[in-house]
């Protein structure tokens, strides 16, 4: 292995003296470096946006949700909450009850998702509903429940007037237009008794593993319940993010494929130019497999130089763009003020690995052809 590596290194160094091969090699090197740079910067951009979205999900939504397997109520929810509090000490637990009500400041009420939550103290609307109804903090709205109560005049809907205490941003991953109430108030309005329809849990220390821990904590108690983690709760969004990343990788990765084809031509050109050298090397004892390795190292050497240069340049560029906020975004449209870039070392390693794999494939064909050559022919035709 040592002699092939040594020769490949000397050939690479010697390429500088051969103008036409050096030019083609420089083009291969620059193409690969640019391809890797583009891929690193693009994936850093995607990762920047996606990690912002994932961060929003983690900071503003439940990390796990417990729902009844059938019906709309969780049986023995008090006991369930006690068990969860005992076994998952640092986890935030919020009891929730939900229904669709008619909500409006006067007669123009609209169907609205109303949620009673144990973690809030006053009536809150999200900005979507606030805009739809034209209301703000301090305004009063009427909430008409789907529950009926029997009166001498027949069944009439239960309703109440609430004073809005806050307007909050919509929760990511959930349709906008919601009214949140304190749990007890909502239970009274929607059910007339202490019913809990769902339990939301949050554990900022381990948001993605919370569902599994809940399953373990509940044991047989969870047989009548469904536990959904972040992955299940936001499956379409997370799938879309993964798909977006894969498609962008493929699209920008095509640049690398083109660069690899260029490298293939480059290595083939060196192989043609070194036809006699290869015959002489055969003459002094370099076997076919060693000749093949020599050209693989040659291609890999050019590919590695290009990939590493591109990865370093791409990483530095992404870090500078992120730190200097060089690409601002309009406020109010996006949740961030400038285009975020996040360099994931594993992603950079993956891109470099992909470039090296392509370089290896590109060098494989000319190296195979060199190894199959008849050494006597190389000497005969000189």
């Amino acid at each position, binding site marked *: 292995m040592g*002699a092939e590596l040594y020769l490949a290194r000397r050939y690479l*160094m010697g390429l500088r003296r051969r103008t036409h091969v050096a030019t083609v090699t420089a083009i291969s090197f620059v193409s690969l470096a640019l391809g890797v740079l583009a891929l690193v910067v693009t994936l850093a951009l995607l990762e920047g946006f996606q990690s912002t979205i994932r961060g929003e999900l983690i900071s503003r939504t439940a990390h796990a949700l417990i729902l009844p397997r059938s019906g709309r109520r969780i049986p023995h929810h008090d006991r369930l909450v006690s068990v969860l509090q005992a076994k998952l000490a640092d986890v935030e637990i919020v009891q929730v009850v939900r229904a669709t009500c008619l909500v409006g400041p006067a007669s123009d009420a609209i169907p609205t998702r109303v949620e009673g939550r144990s973690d809030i103290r006053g009536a809150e609307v999200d900005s979507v509903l606030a805009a739809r109804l034209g209301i703000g903090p301090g305004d009063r709205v009427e909430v008409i429940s789907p529950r009926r109560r029997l009166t001498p005049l027949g069944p009439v809907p239960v309703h109440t007037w609430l004073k809005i205490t806050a307007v909050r941003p919509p929760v990511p991953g959930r349709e906008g237009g919601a009214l949140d109430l304190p749990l007890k108030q909502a239970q009274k309005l929607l059910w007339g008794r202490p019913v809990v329809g769902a339990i939301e849990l949050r554990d900022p220390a381990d948001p993605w593993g919370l569902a599994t821990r809940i399953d373990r904590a509940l044991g047989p108690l969870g047989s009548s319940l469904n536990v959904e983690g972040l992955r299940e709760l936001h499956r379409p969004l997370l799938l879309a993010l993964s798909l977006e990343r894969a498609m962008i990788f493929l699209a920008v990765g095509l640049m690398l494929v083109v660069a690899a084809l260029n490298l293939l031509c480059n290595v083939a050109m060196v192989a043609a130019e070194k036809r*006699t050298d290869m*015959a*002489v090397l*055969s003459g*002094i*004892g370099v076997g076919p497999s060693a000749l093949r390795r020599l050209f693989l190292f040659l291609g890999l050497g050019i590919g590695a130089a290009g990939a590493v240069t591109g990865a370093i340049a791409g990483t530095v560029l992404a870090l500078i763009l992120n730190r200097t906020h060089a690409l601002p975004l309009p406020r109010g449209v996006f949740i961030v003020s400038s285009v975020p870039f996040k360099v994931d070392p594993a992603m950079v390693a993956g891109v470099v690995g992909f470039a090296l794999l392509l370089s290896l494939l590109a060098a494989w064909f000319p190296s195979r052809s060199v190894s199959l050559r*008849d*050494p006597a022919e190389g000497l005969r035709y000189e």
Partner: protein
Amino acid sequence: MSENGLMVRLSGIAKGYGSGGSRVEVLRHLDLEVVRGELLAVVGPSGVGKSTLLHLIGLLDRPDDGTIELEGRDVTGADAERRAALRNRFMGFVFQYHYLLDELDARENVALPLRIAGRSSRAARERADLLLDEVGLAERGDHFPNQLSGGEQQRVAIARALAMSPPLLLADEPTGNLDRDNSERLFSLVRQLHLMEGLTSIIVTHNEEIAGRCDRVFYLVPVGK
């Protein structure tokens, strides 16, 4: 070594190029034996197959028919890797044109067979320096092929051929590109090294004078004559 002292034995060798109507037969029913320590000259007109014969002995080419034995072992059917290993350890090549690698200096060119055999860089350099000294180029080790004269390039090629101390030296018109004085000096060097290193040498040459100074001359005649 074989019991009868034979270094090379070719039996019933046939070799041709091309196929069908355009096929040219170069060697037919060729038998040749070379004993250990012999300095053999192969002579004949251009195109008669002298280089082909040398390539067959040097396992760079395969015969269409016949067998090749080196030190009594049949190597005709050896695979490409085995042939390469034999070329590295068993024989040294000197070609008409020096065929030094342009990217390596004289010392590195001489050391190359040793590097291929897996010797350490230091051991290879020491052996290369010794050989360069033997061929009178001790001071030229750092020079690249394009900084050497034709005679010097060929002397470096000889040093490279002897790097692994092979028992067999194959030279294909080693003086073909040199003037009379350089040819004389180079052949004297080959002859001197042949004796010093205890080599068996086969030299293809057009030069009758050089051939006359070898132990034996093998004449090749065109097929069919």
